């Protein structure tokens, strides 16, 4: 039987349990943050666009930002039975798709996203066990809740499992 594939959109997050998989397509400068508790096989995938909700004019959707999205997903996972001290994180994305000589801050948002996510995970005492960020190419990410494997697909940079 095929296990359920749950799609996570941009500025969105989903939590679930084994044997489902969580997938998010076509990340550029965005980051896909995967949380997993291997004992309960509960996990979550969050697709953030921006590092910091306090710097944005509109912050109605908490899942758009690293600082507001991460705690939200964490709480939903705990509600599903995950235990915070067992949760580990893997992240992917944060590319800079186009290179410009005079890259403004917004062009470097991928890098700033990655930095922000790492700092927030540290603050929350969540261990970051693998990351695949940067570069100038898109990524599709899939978290398999049966195993906790985080699969990264690209167009011409191959596939890898974190």
């Amino acid at each position, binding site marked *: 039987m095929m296990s359920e594939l749950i799609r996570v959109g941009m500025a969105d997050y989903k939590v679930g349990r084994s044997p489902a998989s969580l997938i998010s397509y*076509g*990340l550029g400068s965005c980051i896909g943050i995967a949380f997993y508790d291997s004992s309960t096989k509960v996990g979550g995938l969050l697709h953030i666009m921006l590092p910091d909700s306090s710097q944005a*004019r509109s912050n109605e959707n908490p899942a758009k930002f690293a600082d507001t999205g991460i705690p939200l997903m964490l709480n939903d996972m705990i509600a599903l039975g995950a235990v915070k001290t067992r949760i580990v994180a893997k992240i992917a994305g944060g590319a800079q798709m*186009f290179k410009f000589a005079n890259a403004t801050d*917004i062009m470097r948002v991928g890098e700033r996203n990655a930095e922000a996510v790492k700092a927030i995970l540290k603050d929350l005492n969540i261990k970051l066990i693998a990351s695949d960020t940067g570069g100038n190419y898109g990524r599709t990410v899939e978290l398999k809740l049966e195993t906790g494997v985080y699969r990264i697909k690209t167009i011409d940079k191959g596939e890898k499992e974190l």
Partner: protein
Amino acid sequence: MTDEILNLSADQLDALREIGNVGAGNSATALSQIISRKIDMTVPKVEIMPLGDVPDVVGGPDAMVVGVFLRVYGLAPGSVLFLLPRDSAFYLIDMLMGKERGTTKNLDFMDESALMEIGNILAGSYLNALSHFTKLTLLPSIPALALDMAGAILSVVLVQLGQMGDHALVIETEFLSEDDGIRGHFFLIPDPGSLNTILAAVGVK
């Protein structure tokens, strides 16, 4: 607070559609001259949609596309993005290089350069029309190119919009070649403050 673009009047949306029409008409003519073929364009769509839905316009976030991206400088800054499904881009290269259809299977340095130049010409003619219409000086940056997933390429502009709200105003035109072999999408995405400048310049409230 809600997105300011959700409060645009019907007249304002009409004005934006007309701007898209004039600009895209100019671009379509330019493209048709380059490849010596008739190019049809659709009536521009002016749509306000949730950010996450924008990649669906070009076949979903994991569709493989070639994107030529330019920043627009001047009094109404913004971004221009020309997206071609991968196969359309290959066919366009075949035509430009005088090769048989189906020859191009990946992009080499020359092909990329040619596509960037096409993006440059299209954006230039689009912005010319827009400048003329609004009397605002608008200048394109040098183009940048990527062959990748639509979602990843679009994220460049969606992230900018994401700082201001959860919706995108997309002025979009589809180009079609006579034999249907080329489909391109041309997006003009004004920076948040620029929309008011453009609307004020054409005198629509």
